[in-house]
């Protein structure tokens, strides 16, 4: 059964590069593993447990009940409010990212169900310009939250983002304010927000919506922090502790509620959301 209903307007390239081989070699343990097996195992090596990169589409597939995903109707794409060009034009970067990922921007949002519990879910995708939050990501998060309120469902956001999208300048920074402003409404409506932090959840995303979950779950292997390692190392001219900004660092430091293995994320979310089903 396919997770993604066949809809013309959402073309999902679950396999990033078309590849006819049925088998892949795990970089960690060297075993040849059956690709479909890896997919079904949340992109975790069935042999050694190594985590392979998971796209937003793959994440949806591994978390939502089969066939339950319904993307929102309207597709949005980045504008270029500053006519921004660095070594390349922003518009080119966006077009390339769209082509590479099959996504409109760095987030997928829609309705779905997790072990039967209806949710609205957003999944960020690091492949799309570092998962950065520009106007589209900000707007989509707001629409997702508004749909949560309208449908009285919990909201789940799976972050994978380096932070703000520099190329949109202040428009991008203000998405922090935007998402948080709308997040408040969810709280006022008495609906839960479960924030899932993956590799990486940093910068302006970490310092806004992602840190405001009623429950914050980090995936094993996540990177969590505000400032980048390089910036900090330059500032303090010291080497950083080994597990700095890892999920275990965040747990010890009281920044997150729980760490879960990717394979368990689905059941974890079901348990967490279950407490709020029928909440006032």
């Amino acid at each position: 059964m396919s997770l993604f209903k066949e809809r013309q307007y959402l073309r999902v390239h679950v396999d990033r590069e078309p590849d006819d081989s049925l088998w892949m070699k795990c970089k960690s343990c060297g075993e040849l593993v059956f690709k479909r097996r890896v997919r079904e195992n949340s992109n975790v090596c069935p042999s050694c447990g190594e985590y392979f990169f998971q796209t937003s589409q793959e994440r949806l597939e591994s978390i939502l009940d089969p066939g339950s995903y319904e993307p929102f109707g309207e597709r949005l794409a980045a504008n270029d409010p500053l006519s921004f060009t660095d070594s390349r034009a922003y518009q080119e970067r966006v077009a390339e990212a769209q082509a590479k990922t099959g996504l409109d921007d760095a987030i997928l949002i829609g309705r779905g169900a997790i072990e039967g519990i209806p949710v609205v879910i957003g999944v960020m995708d690091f492949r799309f310009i570092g998962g950065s939050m520009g106007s589209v990501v900000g707007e989509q998060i707001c629409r997702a939250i508004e749909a949560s309120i309208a449908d009285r469902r919990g909201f789940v956001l799976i972050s994978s983002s380096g932070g703000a999208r520099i190329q949109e300048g202040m428009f991008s920074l203000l998405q922090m304010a935007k998402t948080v402003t709308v997040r408040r409404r969810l709280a006022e409506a008495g609906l839960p927000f479960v924030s899932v932090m993956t590799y990486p959840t940093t910068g302006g995303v970490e310092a806004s919506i992602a840190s405001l979950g009623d429950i914050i779950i980090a995936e094993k292997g996540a990177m969590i922090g505000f400032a980048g390692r390089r910036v900090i190392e330059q500032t303090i001219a010291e080497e950083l502790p080994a597990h700095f900004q890892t999920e275990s660092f965040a747990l010890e430091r009281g920044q997150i509620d729980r760490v879960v293995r990717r394979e368990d994320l689905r059941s974890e979310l079901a348990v967490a959301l279950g407490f709020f089903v029928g909440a006032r």
Partner: protein
Amino acid sequence: MTDERTLDLLEAKIEELRQLNAMDGMDLSKEIARLEEKLAVLRQDLYSNLTDWERVRIARHPKRPYALDYIASVFSDFYELRGDRIVGDDRALLAGLARLEGRPVALLAQQKGRTTEENKERFFGMTRPQGYRKAKRVMELAERFGLPLVSLIDTSGAYPGVESEELNIGGAIAENLQTMAGLRVPTVAVVIGEGGSGGALAIGLADRVLMLENAIYSVITPEGAAAILWKDKERAREAATALQMTAPHLLELGLIDGVVPEPLGGAHKNPAITSAALKEAVVHHVNELAAFPLDQLLAARYARYRNVGRYSARPVTDS
């Protein structure tokens, strides 16, 4: 174009002539007057069409007035409140109560240091989690007593250090944003120098956002953008332009509500005049906001931030 240093030299010469004129019997007043006219023209040329990079340099000018330089003249009775009640007191973000033309307000102000000693104490004006949590505490105090909240923003960014991360600086910024989003009092933020990314926004989610004419407000420093996007730190000047971080640009983009004029050459050329302009602007906006019913104020704030951003509908294609 003549640069600033040459003009300063000319000004010094004129002053010397003026002294000579006073001392001796000879009358140089006409010549002096002519030179002064010339100086004014040159100055106008130099400053009235500042490039973005020149504004960045003025925003960071070591002689630029800092928050405390304004506080004494814009407000009266500044009564500092210290500490986050949890971990410590951040000297890079000052908080307290003050009076604005007699009206009690709550004040948040990012403060840079001028001396090495002071910079050490103030972490070069970069706010730490202790500062953000103190700010949140004072925001809530303002709300409890119905006091308008005024923020003076001036930081190159939140302090990027190990302790900051240990103390969940991202979470602290996020909580401040959430607090400001629903704060039940009028809020005015003014970027007086550098508005450095999330570290600035954390006290800047306000009903009115103003900038001094030569202040900057950006998602990233020009140097940071140059390093990441151009892979070349030296191209900060280009980045500064591309990011549209100056007050005139941000006003044009509709992201701020007003620009507070500075004297030619920047605030440091005449802090008193700048201060007067700042006061006028803050008083105007606080008074205007205070006249709104609270529910309208909150609805307007909600609409403003809910709708910020530019995107397009993506047409369905079969490409």
